[in-house]
């Protein structure tokens, strides 16, 4: 066990997994260009939860704790991907990385486009608010910042998001800029069959 915690009762672990795995997997999918990367991240997240089971907070605090772990796992995963692709790019002089695509029309597409124009930390605050639907206190847990800072930053991020949204609206809508999701993810959502097939 990684931190000296006693081995968890498998039934306790399975209960935590059953309650939260779907939400954590959705969290990861929303932030990964590839479903397989999301699956890896969630598996690693629950591996950490297993090893540190004694530290996993219970009740309402469990899910934001798991999101926070998954966030760090994804961060490490992405750094590795960036390094790998950058090295390959420099040597091979090829465009290997999926290009950003946003093709959905309508207000939802405008919202995605506007979100992509914000800073990364602002994007994440709004994702946690709009997609994970977390209250401020739980967002604070995920990000490891004070709830006061969350409230202030969300206020600012929402203001900037609304400016960008209306700017996009005036400009005529999405143009496929500045976002890493594939058109499949944005237009059709991440479908169960796409996850099931395991693209790699």
């Amino acid at each position, binding site marked *: 066990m990684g931190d000296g915690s006693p081995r968890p009762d498998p039934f306790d672990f399975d209960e935590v997994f059953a309650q939260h795995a779907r939400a954590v997997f959705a969290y990861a999918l*929303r*932030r990964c260009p590839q479903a397989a990367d999301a699956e890896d991240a969630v598996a690693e997240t629950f591996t950490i*939860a297993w090893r540190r089971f004694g530290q996993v907070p219970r009740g309402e605090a469990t899910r934001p704790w798991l999101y926070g772990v998954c966030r760090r796992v*994804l961060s490490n995963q992405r750094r590795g991907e*960036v390094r790998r*692709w950058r090295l390959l790019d420099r040597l091979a002089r090829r465009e290997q990385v999926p290009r950003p695509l946003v093709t959905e029309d309508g207000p939802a597409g405008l919202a995605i486009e506007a979100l992509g124009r914000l800073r990364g930390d602002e994007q994440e605050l*709004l994702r946690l608010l709009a997609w994970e639907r977390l209250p401020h206190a739980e967002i604070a847990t995920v990000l490891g910042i*004070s709830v006061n800072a969350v409230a*202030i930053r969300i206020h600012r991020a929402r203001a900037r998001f609304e400016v960008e949204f209306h700017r996009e609206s005036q400009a*005529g809508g999405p143009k496929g800029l500045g976002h890493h999701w594939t058109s499949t993810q944005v237009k059709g959502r991440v479908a169960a069959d796409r996850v099931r097939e395991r693209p790699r």
Partner: protein
Amino acid sequence: MTKRTEGDPLDQLSRADPVDAHGLDLAVLARIRQRSRGAATSQTEGTQVAWKDARRRPPALAVSIGAVAVAVVALLVLNGSDRRLPGALPEPDPSGGPVTALCVETYDLDTLRDRDFAFDGTVQALAGDSVTFMVNESYRGLDSASVTLSAVGMTGTIITSAGGPSISQGQRYLIAGDDGFAWACGFSQPYRPEIAARWAQALAE
């Protein structure tokens, strides 16, 4: 062409959620559970890394990538290049970017000068996260006798690990912030005459 939009943009963002969590495959979740438990009970980190890499790509490709990586590292050491090619991913920004600081900003007199308002006030009313202060002295940004602010994390409605004072009815505080928010982390603190004098001096300059 101008598109017509309706409702709160954040509602539109909610509708643009790219994942249908209810449609996720239970078989995939079961596979994740097995992977997690298997990895956690394996004896070494090396076992996990080997297993994970083996799943991700064929061995020959992994070897090729490794060789390429070594070659490029050598090239970078030689020429120090950091140019980003077309198609390369942006800097690491997987899920939030630089949201690392516990507070919005570090408190000092310089950052205090950047706040929209700062004052010496006494709490008249508390309602959830909203606090109404009677303004004893405004150092910046207020010209009214009282002001109501959001003081999230300082009113006892949410348990918080860091931030500002626990604001109480009738008590006197030094308060600073922006956009109707009282900032924690030193920008709001119990009133002390010596600190108030520093605020007054700093904000008068």
